[in-house]
């Protein structure tokens, strides 16, 4: 798989140090937020600082993008570097520096762009959290942006690791933002610990890289790779991709370590939108894209990525179908889409994966923000069964139609941006030489249909049908802050039509509406690179960005992807027909049928006759053969319970035993026991001091006699 496609060599450019501002600005706004909290300044000052800082860093990235000519390494200051010899393996350097190449810019553009929009959205969304809480929230957001930029723009893997754990910390602080609720605190702890497991894999991968290449800086690593890479691939070198993979799956919530993402929905919705949908979860994809050449170190490495990606996509889609909480559904859809991205990376199209990340970031953020608007308006109500007919309620028209756009993109409706990005992935899979990639391709298509079904299940349930809403009775998982005014005159509504005695959902104000509009436009705009390529046969901007970086190297011979952009010439790699038709048109047809089919089924079950959906569920539950399906899907395939049983319980029991052992056995028996030995010996000799004069005399004489007897015995033995 290794191509001799050389990774472009970075040139050291200290004059570009101003790009470091993108890193520094969020840090400054974080410090300002701390000052606001300490000085208890009223108003939305923290929000202002954060939005300005993020906007400024977005401008900096834009300028950097304009001034970008080739990969650049920008040293800022020496963080960790020492050497105990002059040999290649006798120094350990991890400077605080930036490595700017097209992949970095591609990522930073949508990270900072979305960050600014969502920060603006949050300024209104969190307004009820006046005082220290408000500042604490925006402190978390700023810290997150700082960590994400250091992760993406870092010059070496230790900077990446700094960002990696930094985003973990930010997600811990923000998920647990509403610390009064134990569920939020537990979710935050779970998120951090699962990330930590992934981080361990990443750390071990970093050590192994240093052990084998002597350096952790990308430029030197890629140089080593270009110079023929590792000649002798023994066991510890080929383990590198798997370790990096473990880190990526931990952070991007893939199969083994994904249960923390749905629980992360406990956090406020802007957090879910920014961190758990758009930016942080893509860190795994970025890592594999950045270190793509190293995934050639083991033949089966990329195949594993593909399999896990495909598997997670299907698993998450099945669970997503059976959830009733809008944010949970979108969370599982995020996991499923991430599965697609890893499938893309696995089958070899880094362009497909990265572009899908790009488009997904936009429409998933849009969906989450609309869900947030609904929660904000309906006092924390997110249950599908308790909300419907949003479209007809005055003031909510914008929210429902922006949600519609989001759902269309998520369902990969033909000729939407997501369609093209998913198409690129599935095309590569279906036309690949390996049978398992083809199978994964078809699996991906089936999952696409499921995605379309559950996306529109949500839309039809919430936005269409009779107008009916019940405020969240206990604000069980919505923002506790909202239930303050939600309690008004709540009483369980009877029948389909809600009897609203004085409870009026308040429509979103200007900030949320403008952000939703902008994001909708953004989602559509995200498709332009694909439209440009598909219709106007121009160059695909995204493709150029990915091809210019290390992500491209090591993939399948790029000429296949490049020439596909230059129209239909003979495809000589793999069999290039899908279902007998030519690759592209074939996939267009199949993709369209999958997504439209899904939408139609959803329309039938959830728009036209809702009762039939419940009837279907009852039918499935009734017959014991198919009973397991709905139960498993609703209960998330019992993954959490399995983890609890497999790891948490035995460890907890083990620690109880150890604690008991430490206190009684090690401390009580051993230590105190040894301390009692001399006392026992003392008791042994006690009778000798009975007090009788002649008793002492006898002992004394016996002592002397013993010595003399020993002397005589030695003397008699000839004293040799």
């Amino acid at each position, binding site marked *: 798989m290794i191509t001799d496609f050389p990774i472009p060599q970075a040139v050291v450019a200290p004059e570009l140090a101003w790009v470091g501002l993108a890193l520094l600005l969020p840090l400054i706004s974080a410090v300002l937020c701390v000052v606001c909290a300490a000085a208890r300044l009223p108003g939305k000052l923290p929000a202002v600082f954060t939005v300005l800082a993020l906007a400024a860093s977005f401008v900096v990235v834009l300028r950097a993008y304009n001034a970008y000519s080739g990969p650049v390494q920008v040293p800022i200051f020496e963080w960790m570097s020492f050497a105990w010899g002059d040999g290649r393996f006798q120094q350990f350097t991890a400077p605080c520096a930036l490595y700017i190449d097209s992949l970095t810019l591609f990522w930073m553009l949508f990270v900072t762009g979305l960050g600014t929009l969502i920060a603006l959205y949050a300024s209104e969304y969190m307004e009820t959290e006046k005082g220290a809480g408000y500042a604490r929230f925006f402190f978390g957001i700023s810290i997150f942006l700082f960590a994400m930029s250091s992760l993406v723009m870092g010059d070496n893997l230790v900077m990446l690791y700094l960002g990696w754990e930094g985003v973990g910390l930010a997600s811990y602080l923000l998920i647990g933002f509403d610390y009064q609720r134990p569920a939020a605190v537990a979710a935050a702890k779970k998120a951090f610990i699962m990330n930590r497991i992934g981080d361990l894999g990443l750390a071990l991968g970093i050590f192994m890289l240093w052990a084998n290449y002597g350096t952790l800086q990308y430029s030197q690593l890629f140089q080593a790779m270009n110079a023929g890479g590792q000649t002798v691939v023994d066991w510890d070198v080929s383990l590198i991709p798997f370790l990096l993979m473990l880190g990526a799956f931990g952070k991007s919530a893939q199969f083994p370590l994904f249960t923390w993402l749905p629980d992360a929905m406990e956090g406020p919705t802007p957090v879910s939108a920014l961190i758990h949908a758009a930016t942080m979860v893509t860190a795994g994809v970025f890592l594999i894209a950045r270190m793509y050449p190293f995934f050639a170190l083991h033949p089966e490495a990329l195949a594993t990525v593909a399999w896990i990606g495909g598997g997670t996509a299907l698993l998450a889609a099945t669970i997503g179908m059976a959830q009733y909480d809008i944010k949970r559904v979108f969370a599982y859809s995020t996991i499923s889409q991430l599965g697609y991205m890893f499938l893309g990376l696995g089958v070899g199209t880094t362009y497909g994966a990265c572009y899908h990340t790009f488009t997904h970031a936009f429409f998933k953020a849009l969906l989450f923000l609309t869900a947030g608007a609904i929660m904000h308006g309906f006092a924390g109500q997110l249950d599908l069964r308790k909300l419907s007919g949003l479209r007809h309620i005055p003031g909510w028209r914008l929210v429902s139609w922006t949600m519609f756009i989001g759902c269309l993109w998520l369902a990969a409706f033909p000729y939407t941006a997501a369609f093209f990005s998913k198409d690129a992935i599935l095309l590569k899979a279906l036309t690949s030489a390996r049978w398992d990639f083809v199978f994964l391709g078809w699996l991906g298509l089936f999952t696409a249909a499921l995605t379309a079904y559950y996306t529109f299940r949500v839309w039809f349930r919430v936005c269409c049908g009779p107008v009916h809403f019940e405020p969240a009775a206990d604000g069980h998982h919505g923002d506790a802050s909202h239930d303050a005014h939600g309690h008004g005159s709540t009483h369980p509504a009877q029948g389909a039509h809600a009897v609203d005695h004085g409870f009026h959902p308040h429509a979103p104000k200007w900030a949320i509406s403008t952000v939703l509009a902008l994001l909708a436009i953004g989602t559509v705009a995200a498709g332009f690179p694909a439209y440009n390529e598909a219709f106007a046969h121009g160059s695909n901007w995204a493709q150029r960005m990915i091809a210019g970086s290390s992500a491209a190297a090591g993939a399948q011979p790029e000429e296949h992807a490049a020439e596909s952009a230059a129209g239909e010439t003979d495809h000589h790699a793999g069999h290039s027909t899908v279902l007998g038709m030519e690759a592209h048109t074939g996939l267009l047809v199949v993709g369209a049928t999958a997504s439209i089919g899904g939408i139609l089924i959803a329309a039938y079950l959830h728009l036209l006759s809702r009762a039939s959906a419940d009837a279907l569920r009852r039918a499935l539950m009734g017959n014991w053969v198919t009973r397991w399906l709905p139960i498993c899907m609703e209960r998330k395939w019992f993954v959490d319970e399995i983890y609890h049983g497999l790891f948490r319980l035995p460890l907890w029991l083990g620690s109880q035993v150890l604690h008991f052992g430490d206190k009684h056995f090690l401390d009580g028996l051993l230590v105190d026991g040894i301390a009692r030995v001399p006392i026992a010996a003392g008791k042994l000799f006690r009778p000798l001091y*009975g*007090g*009788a*004069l002649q008793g002492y005399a006898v002992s004394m*004489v016996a002592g002397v006699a013993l010595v003399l007897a020993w002397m005589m015995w030695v003397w008699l033995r000839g004293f040799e």
Partner: protein
Amino acid sequence: MNAFPAHALASTALEGIGQAFAAASGAQLSLSLAISALLFVIGLVGFMVRRNMIIMFLCTELMFQGAALAMITFARMHMDVSGQVFVIFILTVAAAEAALALGLVVLLHRRRETLSAEVWSDLGEA
């Protein structure tokens, strides 16, 4: 204690000790050395066995005399007068001890009517 076959013990002890010393210091004086050793051992055993404090003191005197006799024998052997000088000092010191011992015994007798040493054992660990 007196059921002990004293004479048998004495005879066997005599030749054993005599024989031991004979090898070391010339044949003819071995007898007196043996006697001195016997004196010492009798004093020792008497000290441990007899209850009466005065008898115990006498036994210590006996031990002293045993040592003195050995000293004289060796002086004779080495034809050196300093041994005998030593004995004179042993006698003086023994006399001093006697005075002291009887003083103590009288002091204790006044406190408790008995002369037996067993009475005095309430010090010591239970």
